[in-house]
């Protein structure tokens, strides 16, 4: 009787899950529990299997728990202590019963183990040819490198959650994707709750996982559209005003003419392995678009990733790599502000006093511990050439110059010249 009831619960749950992603109306009772437990519907095929397993286990646990507690409550009421009446004699050992309640749970556990193992392999081993994306975690954000060499960091899409910039990673739907993951510093863990998957990132080896996202299909809840013009983008980005968005958790893109009208779904990424101060701000968004729209985005992104104006480029790099510790408006943070840093004389903890010029800035990027500003702790990570190449450091210097009143003025229109000049100087030496 128990097994037939279980089987029935299983079938019903499975059917509910299948319809849950297709439409919002479904059988109310199971729908309610599915959403209470899992909030958003599963957004990959493997995740649907996980949901099925999870809800199956939930109803399995409910049946066992209610059964056990029911028996306990019945005994407690029936055999409560009554004056002058002592406990009745009853056997204190019964081999048959004890074997039964050892073997029956064991059989269930064997089935649960295998079902879980198969579902796990689906999320770890890619099927068919998969696109490989290289994910890097660091304190406290993520970078994604696409097959064409494009690197998306948290400044790239200029998208923020609250006041924090979060990286937005575009991925194509209905296409297997594997992530090759690695950490720059401590351990992190890449968790996409909507995909029901997570995996740790380590500093000393690559780890990986795989998923095939379900595409944004018309009429489904959670579908958003890239804004068609500036006004719409502004409206979308004002707090709580995104159409169809339950809350500020949906991060609206800015107006991008090349991508106007592109449909997408957003999925949170959280860091799930404790990594220090900003662990809870180490979020990202995976944005699923159709394959055609993904190509549109790649074309646009490739053009954007190497701006012709070094100040703009420096600003982009600043947002992605430096903004968590340095301000540009004179405000206090972990590191010194960049406002009026370039060209001024500063005190350093080793007693020296030098003017912050190009050479000093490059030194501070490559070897930050060599000279530390008075009043600040030595806690900046060094950036190697692999993390910031010489062209990128040039761009950052140009941006710093634009923030200082003692530097040669770099206006956007004549921005290329000083950068070019300093490069020539560098090559002349």
């Amino acid at each position, binding site marked *: 009787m128990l097994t037939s009831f279980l089987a029935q619960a299983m079938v019903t749950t499975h059917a509910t899950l299948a319809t849950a992603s297709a439409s919002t109306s479904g059988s109310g009772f199971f729908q309610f529990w599915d959403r209470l437990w899992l909030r958003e519907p599963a957004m990959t095929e493997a995740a649907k299997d996980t949901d099925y397993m999870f809800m199956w286990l939930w109803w399995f646990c409910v049946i066992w728990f209610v059964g*056990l507690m029911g028996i306990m409550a019945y*005994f407690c009421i029936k055999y409560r202590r009554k004056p002058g009446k*002592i406990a009745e004699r009853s056997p204190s050992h019964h081999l048959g019963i004890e074997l039964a309640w050892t073997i029956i749970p*064991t059989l269930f556990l064997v089935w649960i183990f295998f079902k879980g193992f198969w579902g796990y392999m689906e999320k770890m081993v890619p099927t068919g040819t998969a696109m490989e994306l290289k994910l890097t975690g660091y304190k406290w954000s993520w970078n994604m490198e696409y097959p064409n060499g494009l690197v998306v960091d948290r400044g790239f899409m200029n998208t923020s959650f609250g*006041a924090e910039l979060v990286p937005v990673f575009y991925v194509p739907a209905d296409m297997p994707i594997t992530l090759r993951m690695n950490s720059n510093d401590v351990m992190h863990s890449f968790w996409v709750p909507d995909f029901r998957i997570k995996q740790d990132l380590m500093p*000393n080896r690559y780890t990986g996982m795989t998923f095939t996202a379900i595409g944004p299909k018309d009429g489904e809840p959670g579908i958003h559209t890239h804004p068609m013009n500036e006004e719409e983008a502004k409206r979308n980005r004002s707090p709580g005003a995104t159409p169809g968005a339950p809350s500020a958790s949906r991060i609206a893109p800015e107006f991008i003419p090349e991508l106007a009208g592109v449909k997408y779904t957003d999925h949170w990424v959280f860091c799930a392995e404790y990594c220090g*101060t900003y662990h809870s701000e180490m979020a990202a968004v995976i944005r699923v678009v159709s394959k055609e729209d993904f190509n549109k985005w790649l074309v646009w992104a490739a053009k954007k990733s190497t701006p012709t104006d070094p100040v703009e480029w420096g600003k982009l790099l600043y947002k992605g790599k430096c903004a968590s510790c340095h301000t540009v408006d004179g405000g206090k943070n972990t590191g010194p502000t960049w406002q009026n840093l370039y060209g001024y004389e500063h005190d350093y903890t080793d007693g020296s006093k030098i003017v912050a010029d190009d050479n000093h800035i490059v030194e501070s990027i490559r070897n930050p511990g060599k000279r530390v500003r008075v009043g600040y702790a030595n806690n900046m990570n060094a950036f190697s050439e692999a993390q910031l190449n010489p062209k990128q450091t040039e761009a950052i210097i140009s941006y710093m110059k634009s923030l200082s009143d003692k530097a040669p003025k770099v206006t956007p229109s004549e921005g290329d010249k000083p950068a070019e000049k300093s490069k020539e100087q560098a090559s002349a030496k």
Partner: protein
Amino acid sequence: MASAHAQGHSHDHAHGSYLTPKGGFWTTVLDWATTVDHKKIGMMYLVAILFMFFLGGLAALAVRTELFQPVRVDAQTGAITGQLLANWFYAEPTMAQGNDVYNIAFTLHGAIMVFMVIVPSIPASLGNFLLPIMLGTKDVAFPRLNLLSWYIYVIGSMFAVGAILLGGVDTGWTFYTPYSTSTGNEFGKLTLMVMAAFILGFSSILTGLNFIVTVHKLRAPGMGWFDMPLFVWAVYSSAIIQVLATPVIGITLLLLVFERTFNVGIFDPSLGGDPVLYQHFFWFYSHPVVYVMILPGMGIISDVLAVHSHKKIFGYRAIAYSSLGIAAVSFIVWGHHMFTSMSELASAVFSGLTFLVAIPTAVKVFNWISTLYKGSIAFTTPMVYALIFLFLFSIGGLTGLPLGTLSTDLHLHDSYFVVAHFHYVMMGGTIMALMAGLHHWWPKFFGRMYNENAALFCALIVFVGFNLTFFTQFYLGSQGMPRRYASYIDEFTSLHQISTYGSYLLGLGFLGHLFVFLHSLAAGRVAPQNPWGGLTLEWVAASPPVEHNFDHDPVVKHGPYDFETTVPPGWTPDEYPIPAENLRTAGSH
């Protein structure tokens, strides 16, 4: 505390109870500080552990307070809202300050509760007091080692408190590398905290060793292995784990200190080490130790359920063997803490092994519930706590299934689902069992009864508060809330708020218990020798026991749970009318 019992209850005994002061104030203090009496050491452990429980509880409330609201930064003004915890320490906390305060708070909560409360709680306090009495002996096998273990515990705890006073550490109680080798350099406070855990390990080993030898060598005449109370079996099983597993964490933590001090390069990848190796070492101890935490609790539940329903425990041998079974299997399941950082093959093997441990645990629950059948169940506070244990521990055990299952664990790993799960097991299990045990043996410890109705009311508050606090966290976890986050997305706000209100209720419940206990010490009714009608040897001893436990060495003539054939010692037959045809012996002396 001792002075409250100055009047003593030494009635018909030649020597006074162990609580009777030896002289003036300083003489008494010196007597307690140098005592080798297992009862006094047990009570000193109890006081020290309850104090640390209070500190850990404050840290828990601090964590819940911070999580009442998500932290938000106004994009225009830059104003930060929702840093409810940091607001106590800074006038205008920055994001980094707010997060660091939270990170330190949850690390303190975890480290204190695991290393200083739950691991030593039942064995070191209740176990120390009761194990020799239940075995009918005068003391543990090595009384001086026993006193040493208490001093080591206090020194270890002082190291931890020192680290807290120096600003606290923010690694989480697991000290995962390479984060833990790259943080907390100020004043060497992280090294202090790690040393605290290292030192506490020795206290654990000494207690475990003492118990194993005591059980093997000092059982009363007539007491075979299967005449021991199940509490003794459980403490014995957990002592084996303590002795075998604790050295591993000792070595691991020492290596971590070497790594930080001399940069030897074992765990830090930038020096050629492997952080996953640290995880293996760490969990090779810390998984078995989960059973050090829960097994003594299971022992208490076995005893309390039997005594308060006056019923022979169902499947005595099954419960005893399953304790040993759990102890054995606990050594080969550590990998389930690392499903997201191991190879697929290793994950599959550890997932399979993990399900093995579910079976003896389930068997115990079935046995406990069957014990109630045809019993005479009294709803005293210990019994109600035992029933609460069964309720909460069943939830904790069952929610282990989706965590052991690989596909669902990949979603739930390091989420609030895990947080809820281990609180249901550790707090709903061990702490509720400790509460059951404390009330059950309170009359024996101090010779005073507590106010039953007040205690029952507090138990109800604890039960409601606990479920409000932690059941919501199951939903949070599976909905996508990661562990150790100072802030969260808006969707999680209402569940977090319910959880925080629940935690305040839980705190109130425990505060209530504290007052009930203090009231009992000051003005409680004098306890009879055997208030619940138990059959084990501690109920033969006086309440509180005399200095050497018994007036003359007890001889065991009946099993620990033979309620059908034995009149409990200290009870009059008309209170306990056993039919003449059942009667075998009338008490043991």
